[in-house]
């Protein structure tokens, strides 16, 4: 029986929600089409992760465990993926879109002479491949796309599907894998992570995003306070990541991350298409901007026109009251 394979993304020992979204979609497609849904975990602690995955219903969980996967490095990850694909022979390989999967998607496709489609927002199976949708032109429009062959390799935007729990008695199978340091070719020297203790943006239920108008420490403190009341992830526009006021990993948009929270609050963000590309799928959008004609108001459910320095204090105070009750 042919297999739909979801490659699980793990961050700091935790399964990324976006992987479970993709897995849930593959479970559904497998059930509809009489196929097998399998998950692949490539991690330093793959067997622990595999246990947790049982709650999300794959038929089989493949693991490749090796200390080399403690940090992302494309050479060993590619070798592991290639080994796994040879072993499993899936007809579809689906990744959640992450910086790590983007790093290897093209190389894996070239290695397997397979068709690749990145950053899909919808996908389904066809007779001889996959079809679906992906946003293009800075997410101004959607393009319908198709890929043929076996396997087809895709990545899926976070928030495109719901992660659905489904208990299973999946079998766990470890795949043999060896890696020598002399195969590395590239050397990871250091990881600078300044946001490790914060809420993961792409998974956050609420996001507070700061834009150019947040111009001083007072403004940034209010952003932090608002985020902490809402247990929100902090994001930023390119204007502020470029200025060095916010960590580059917090950028939301075409270059940055895609977020799809229940609540997005944009503070002094104009709403450039490249920013909107990363947040338009938020459920409720609140915009605070002093320019009544700012484009962000075209997509905001609640548009607060005014100076952030005057609006945020009472807004924060009122939210605190609500939280206390």
């Amino acid at each position: 029986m042919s297999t739909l394979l979801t490659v699980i993304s793990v961050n700091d020992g935790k399964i990324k929600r976006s992987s479970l979204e993709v897995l849930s979609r593959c479970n559904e497609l497998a059930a509809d089409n009489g196929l097998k849904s399998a998950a692949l975990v490539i991690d330093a602690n793959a067997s622990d992760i595999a246990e947790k995955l049982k709650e999300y219903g794959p038929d089989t969980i493949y693991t490749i465990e090796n200390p080399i996967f403690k940090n992302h490095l494309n050479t060993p990850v590619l070798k592991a993926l290639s080994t796994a694909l040879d072993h499993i022979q899936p007809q579809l390989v689906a990744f959640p879109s992450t910086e790590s999967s983007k790093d290897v998607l093209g190389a894996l496709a070239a290695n397997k002479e397979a068709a690749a489609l990145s950053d899909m927002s919808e996908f389904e199976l066809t007779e001889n491949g996959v079809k679906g949708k992906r946003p293009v032109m800075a997410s101004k429009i959607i393009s319908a796309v198709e890929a043929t062959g076996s396997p087809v390799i895709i990545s899926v935007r976070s928030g495109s599907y719901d992660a659905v729990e489904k208990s299973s008695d999946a079998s766990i199978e470890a795949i043999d894998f060896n890696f020598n340091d002399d195969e590395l070719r590239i050397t990871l020297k250091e990881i600078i992570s300044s946001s490790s203790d914060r809420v993961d943006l792409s998974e956050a239920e609420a996001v507070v995003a700061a834009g150019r108008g947040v111009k001083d420490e007072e403004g940034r403190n209010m952003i932090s306070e608002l985020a902490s009341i809402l247990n929100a992830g902090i994001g930023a526009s390119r204007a502020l990541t470029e200025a060095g006021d916010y960590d580059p990993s917090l950028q939301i948009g075409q270059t940055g991350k895609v977020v799809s929270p229940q609540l997005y609050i944009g503070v002094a963000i104009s709403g450039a298409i490249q920013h909107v590309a990363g947040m338009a799928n938020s459920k409720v959008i609140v915009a605070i901007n002093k320019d009544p004609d700012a484009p962000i108001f075209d997509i905001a459910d609640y548009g607060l026109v005014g100076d952030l320095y005057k609006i945020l204090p009472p807004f924060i105070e009122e939210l605190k009251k609500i939280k206390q009750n």
Partner: protein
Amino acid sequence: MKFYVCIKQVPDVYAPLQIKDGQLIQDADRNVLNAYDASAVEEALVLTEQHGGEVEVVLAGPEKAKETLRKALAMGAHKGTHIVTNGDEEFDSSAYAKILAKFFSDKEYDFISCGKQSQDTDAGLAGSMMAELLDLPYATNAVDLKFSDGTLTVKRQGDAGQEIIDVPSPGLVTCSNDMNDPRIPSLKGIMQSKRKPVDTISLDDLGADISSDEVKTKVLGFEEKPEREAGKKYEGEPDEIAREVAQLLDTEENVI
């Protein structure tokens, strides 16, 4: 140090667009140098200014894409190669990666630099595909590059933070536009670009004729994205509107 930078001409996302019967209608004359590739050109120029060497830009695209090659030369790239396509082949990232890999197969260089993605399609595939086809070590999504002793030190934006990675020569890197602000060509640069050497080669010459069934991904059509309606705008006394919206987020939306 020899840098090759792969640059692509893409439609300007700011040009008005329209969808008719699933087809995208846009002004065919409004094209730009892919923003991510402009950052790759800029960084290669900075590094060769510091360490000596040469930057050559390579573009695969139709005749009219030559203007984009000229733009990169006007920024300061030393020479260019234009691999001419018909423009109606519907090539995907994989097809371009194969064409470019074929071009590089008999070239000598320290590094090939690409954009991290095309600004119009956001595919982000051709760079690492080329690395695999050419068997080069690579790093993607670079936000900073440094060069010393034949090694490129890449700061890449990863999931867990910024990863500092050494890529030996010959290697490949894909660049984010978070890397720099690409220079605007000066008048002098524009004048000089007209005298800079540009090689023009056909897919035939290159032996890289890609047949249509080798192209395994296809665009079937375009559609509007679901319209998001503007909600309500609150103007007036900051204190009042702030509290009102805070309450509504709780009572109406249940998101607090």
